[in-house]
C-alpha cells in the first residue's frame, strides 16, 4: 500500500502551481466577472446574480443543454462499444498491432479546425468521394437543410475523430491481461463471450471509466468541430452549449459569458465528482 507522508505535497507542488496559473487563477477571474456588468474592464458595476438568473431562466440555455446531452448520449453509445470491439479485433501478431494502431490513430492528428473542412469536402457533391456516392443511396445533396442529416454528419465526424482514442485506451488495458488467464479459460472451454465478460471486461473497467469521462466532457462541450459544419443550423438545431458561450465571448459580453463559464464549470465539477465516486465504487468492488 501507499505510505503516508506529507512530503508528497513537495512532489506535486510544481504541477499544482502550473495548474493554478493556467486553471485556477483564470477560473477565479471568471467567477469575479460573473457578478458584474462590464462595458470596459475599468468601469464595472455590481449586478449580483442577475446574469445567472437570466441564463438559467432562458429557454435557449436549456435547449442547448438538451441538445448537448443528446449529442453526448449518441457519442458515448456509439464510440465506447465500437472502441471496445475494435480493440478486441486487433490481431495478436506484434508487427500487425503496431501498423493497425498507427493507422487507427491517424484521425487524432488532424488539426481540429480542419476536421469540418475535411468532412465537408468529403461530402461535396461534385468533388467528394462520399458526396458523389451517397445521392445514389438516397442521401439528399441539400442535407444542410435537414436536422437529422446535419446531426448524422456531426456524429459520424465525431466517431471518426475520437473512436481511435477509445481503441488505444482499451487496447492498452487488454494487454495487461496475463496470458495464463486465457490458457485457464481455454482449458475450461470458455466461449469467446465468456472470456470477454469475465476476463477482459473487468480489466477494462478503469480505462473505460476514464474514456467515458473524456469522451463525455469533450463531446458535451464540442466547439471547434461542430459549428463550421452547418453554422449551428439548420435553425439552431446543432447549437450546442459551447457554441452559445463562444458567441458571447466574441461579442465581448464579459459578464454574461463569465456567468455562463461558471455554470459550465459547475457541470464539469459535478461530472468529475461523479467520476471519482465511480472510481471509489470500482475499487471497493475489486477488494471485496
Amino acid at each position: 500500500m501507499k505510505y503516508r507522508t506529507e512530503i508528497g505535497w513537495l512532489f506535486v507542488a510544481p504541477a499544482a502551481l502550473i495548474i493554478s496559473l493556467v486553471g485556477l487563477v483564470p477560473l477565479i477571474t471568471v467567477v469575479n466577472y460573473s457578478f458584474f456588468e462590464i462595458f470596459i474592464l475599468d468601469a464595472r458595476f455590481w449586478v449580483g446574480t442577475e446574469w445567472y438568473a437570466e441564463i438559467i431562466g432562458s429557454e435557449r440555455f436549456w435547449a442547448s443543454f438538451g441538445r448537448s446531452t443528446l449529442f453526448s448520449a449518441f457519442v458515448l453509445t456509439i464510440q465506447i462499444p465500437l472502441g471496445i470491439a475494435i480493440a478486441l479485433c486487433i490481431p495478436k501478431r506484434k508487427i500487425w498491432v503496431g501498423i493497425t494502431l498507427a493507422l487507427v490513430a491517424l484521425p487524432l492528428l488532424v488539426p481540429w479546425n480542419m476536421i469540418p473542412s475535411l468532412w465537408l469536402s468529403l461530402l461535396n457533391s461534385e468533388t467528394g468521394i462520399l458526396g458523389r456516392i451517397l445521392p445514389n443511396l438516397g442521401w439528399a445533396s441539400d442535407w444542410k437543410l435537414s436536422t437529422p442529416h446535419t446531426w448524422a454528419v456531426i456524429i459520424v465526424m465525431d466517431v471518426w475523430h475520437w473512436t481511435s482514442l477509445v481503441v488505444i485506451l482499451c487496447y492498452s488495458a487488454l494487454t495487461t491481461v496475463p496470458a495464463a488467464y486465457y490458457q485457464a479459460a481455454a482449458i475450461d472451454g470458455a466461449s469467446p463471450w465468456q472470456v470477454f465478460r469475465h476476463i477482459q471486461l473487468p480489466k477494462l473497467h478503469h480505462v473505460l471509466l476514464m474514456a467515458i469521462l473524456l469522451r463525455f466532457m469533450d463531446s458535451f462541450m464540442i466547439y471547434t468541430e461542430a459549428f463550421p459544419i452547418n453554422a449551428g443550423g439548420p435553425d439552431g438545431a446543432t447549437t450546442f452549449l459551447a457554441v452559445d458561450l463562444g458567441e458571447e465571448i466574441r461579442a465581448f459580453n464579459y459578464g454574461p459569458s463569465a456567468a455562463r463559464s461558471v455554470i459550465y464549470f459547475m457541470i464539469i465539477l459535478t461530472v468529475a465528482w461523479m467520476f471519482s465516486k465511480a472510481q471509489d465504487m470500482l475499487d471497493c468492488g475489486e477488494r471485496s
Partner: protein
Amino acid sequence: MTFVYRYLPALKVTALLAFILFACLPLVQMTLISFTVTLPKPSAEVGSLTFTNYTNIWNSPNLRSSFVNSIAYVLINICITVPVAIPAAYAFSRMSFSGDKHLFLAFIAFRITPPVVLTLPIFQLFSALGIVNSVFGIALAHCLFNLPISIWILQGFISAIPKELDETAFLDGYSHPRFIWKFLLPQIAPGIAVTAFFCFMFSWVEVVFARILTTTNGKPISMAINSLFGFHTDIGLVMAVTTAAMMPGAVLLFAMRTHLSLGFRVGRV
C-alpha cells in the same frame, strides 16, 4: 451463437479493415485534393494533377514559420509538462498525503474543462504577463489539459514498478530525487515516450487557445490554415498544408507504434 464463433476470426479481420477504411477515407480525400489544381490558373486546368500546392507551402514564409512555431510550442510544452508530471505522478502513485484525492480530482476537473470556458481570463492574464503572440504562451496554456493527462499516464507506469525497487534504494541511502533520477527514470522511459507523444498529439491539434493567444505573431499551423480561407479559397493548398501538418505526427506515431502496441499502462489513484 456457435455459428458466429466459428467465423469469429474472419469477422474480426473484416470489422478491423472496415474501421481502418472508415478512418482513412477522409484522409484519402484530403491527400487527393492536395495534389489537385483547385483555382483557375493560366498554366494549369482546374482538376489536373499538380505538385504546386506543396511547393507553394515551401515558398510562403508565413506557412514555413507556422510550422516552426507549431514545433516550437509543442516542444516547449513537453519540456514543461514531463519534468513537472514525473514527480507528481510518483507522489500520486506511492504516497498518501492529506488532500491527495481532492487534488487529483481538481487536476481531472481542469483536464476536462474546455478551453473556451477560460479563454477570456487566460488572454487577459497572459497579456498582463506579456506572453501573448509568442509560442511560450500557447505552450503554457496547453499545460491545462496536458499536465493532468501526463500525470495520469505516468502514474500508471510508475504503479506497475514493484515497490521493492524504492525500498532497496532507500535502504542503500538514496534520497527521493536521486532515486527518481537514477532508478525510476530508466524504468519508465517507455512511459515518458508515450506521455510525450500524447502531449504532442493533444497540443498539436488544439485550436481554441492557439487562436486567442496569437493575434498578430507566433501563429501555429492550424491558424495559418485558417488565414488561407477567404473569398477565393485555394482548397488544394489548404489540404496540402493539412497533409503536411499531419506528417510529423504520422512519423512519430509510426516510431511510437511498438510502445503503443506494448500497451501503455493506465492506472488510477
